[in-house]
């Protein structure tokens, strides 16, 4: 299902075309259609769904290669098998991947004069796990884009005995402190925010915010507030240009899946000839990066589009009893056709039809556009999640615009497709 985006602002975009000297592709060549991305560019990098580096490799992992340098130096390491994750913000990489290439990023010192010798560590939470490691400054290059100066990243401590150890308030769920546990050598968080935690982690005092810590050379870490500019941050916001968001594109695949899928990660929205919005539908997100999905009579206000989730996750009582693999996936006996409606904060709606298959039938395919699993409904808050994971990306061009920045004529944060 190839999408052709018709130009909505023809005169301006034709002008841009003329300036860039770029032609070719379809008549809608100013938008991120498949033709114009195949031509490559400074702001495009290959993003591939394929078997990755883990010994028990999960499916639907879109990988890119990232180059990480000691700030202001030529000491660099390319690191492959970095997961592109639109559900998080900031670059995270296994310490072993860096040290193998001789890149030793020092930990960020705690600027508090009362804590000399302390360094800053981060505990990144997931629903049932965490990643623990130091915060370091690095120069980050992806494709032809390099951060202007350095950006805070997280170096995940994947040594056999992390030092300092993750505090008990952090160690909730399973540690994703290894390539095997994470399914990747790192995470490139390119969601709709710049800093990973925002103002909540910058507030003082910080009880129960088990995210940023100040750690002495030996002894116990304690939680600290971390200024927004010092938090692990989305490197895209630090590029000198093409820095207002990203676009992800994956090809359509068979409903039986494919062994691999070759797509693109594009930097910038409406900044180059190859990344205009075209007639994509824009759904603005709230301050948590979420919008509302209506599904099966439920209104789910904490929904999001997430390349880091390897299936669609939603609650469907008609699939009760079809949960499998420790309640992590659905295994319906027959292919099931479903539909949902997304609505942005701007009131724009979008209807989606999708299918789900039995996850036990995927064979050796790592690219799958129709796998799903359960997600919780959280009563007590009228809260609920529809996680539009990687299956939603196949056959689509999806735009992720950064909070507080204008992208293609609309202020982020927003999703568009």
């Amino acid at each position, binding site marked *: 299902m190839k999408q052709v985006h018709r130009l909505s602002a023809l005169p301006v975009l034709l002008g841009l075309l003329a300036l860039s000297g770029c032609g070719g592709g379809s008549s809608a060549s100013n938008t991120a259609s498949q033709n114009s991305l195949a031509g490559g560019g400074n702001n495009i990098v290959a993003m591939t769904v394929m078997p990755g580096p883990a010994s028990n490799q999960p499916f639907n992992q879109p990988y890119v290669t990232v180059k990480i340098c000691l700030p202001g130096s030529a000491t660099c390491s390319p690191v492959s098998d970095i997961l592109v994750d639109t559900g998080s913000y900031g670059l995270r990489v296994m310490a072993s991947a860096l040290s193998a290439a001789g890149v030793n990023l020092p930990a960020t010192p705690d600027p508090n004069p009362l804590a000399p010798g302390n360094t800053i560590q981060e505990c990144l939470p997931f629903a049932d796990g965490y990643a623990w490691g130091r915060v370091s400054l690095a120069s980050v290059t992806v494709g032809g884009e390099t951060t202007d100066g350095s950006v805070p990243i997280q170096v995940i401590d994947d040594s056999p005995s992390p030092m300092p150890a993750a505090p008990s308030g952090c160690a909730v769920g399973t540690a994703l402190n290894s390539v095997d546990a994470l399914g990747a050598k790192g995470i490139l968080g390119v969601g709709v925010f710049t800093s990973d935690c925002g103002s909540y982690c910058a507030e003082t005092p910080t009880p129960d915010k088990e995210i940023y810590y100040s750690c002495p050379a030996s002894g116990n870490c304690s939680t600290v507030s971390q200024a927004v500019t010092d938090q692990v941050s989305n490197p895209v916001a630090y590029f000198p240009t093409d820095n207002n968001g990203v676009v992800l594109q994956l090809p359509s695949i068979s409903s039986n899946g494919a062994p691999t899928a070759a797509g693109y990660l594009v930097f910038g929205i409406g900044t180059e000839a190859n990344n205009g919005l075209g007639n994509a539908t824009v759904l603005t997100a709230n301050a948590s990066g979420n919008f509302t999905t209506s599904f099966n009579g439920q209104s789910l206000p*904490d929904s999001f589009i997430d390349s880091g989730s390897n299936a669609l996750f939603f609650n469907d009582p008609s699939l009760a009893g079809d949960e499998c693999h420790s309640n992590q996936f659905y295994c319906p006996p027959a292919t099931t056709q479903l539909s949902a409606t997304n609505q942005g904060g701007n009131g724009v709606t979008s209807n989606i039809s999708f299918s789900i298959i039995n996850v036990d039938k995927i064979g050796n395919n790592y690219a799958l556009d129709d796998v799903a699993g359960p997600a919780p409904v959280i009563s007590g808050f009228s809260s609920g999640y529809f996680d539009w994971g990687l299956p939603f990306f196949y056959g689509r061009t999806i735009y992720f615009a950064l909070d507080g920045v204008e992208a293609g004529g609309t202020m982020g944060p927003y999703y568009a497709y």
Partner: protein
Amino acid sequence: MNRRLMRTLPSTALLAALLSCNLLMSGPAHAALGGTVDSISTDSSALRGQLRSTGFVDYDVHQITSGPMVVNEYTTRAGQVFAITWHGPVPPDLQQLLGTYFPRFQSAAAAAHQNNPGLHRVFTLAQPDLVIRSAGHLRAFGGIAYLPALVPSDLAIDQLQ
């Protein structure tokens, strides 16, 4: 004085006493799943927030709000915590909130990763005596943990207020 009021008054009074005590320390704290209001932890890293309690026919809700972070604790008439829900930019202190049930969460999380490595944005533990559902990403986490055996018989757990 009607019977219902007599049954609820002690726990309300105790909560009020604990609230005024905690204001001198670190703010309102909260009990663990399965615990009673008598066992409220006064851990110094407790949420600094506002406590608001609401009575329903068969249960009470104690809501602790700290900016965008909200934790609801649901207690039976006897003062036992049968459900906890949370919503906020980061997860709450689950080790404290799940209390004696925390090791079971840890085991279930390990089992989930055993068969299915990678980062997870949703989690479900559904056992006859313990249900924990959790989901989200940084800036938007939420979850519920409850003990089915303690849920008042006429309360639909999916319709908590």
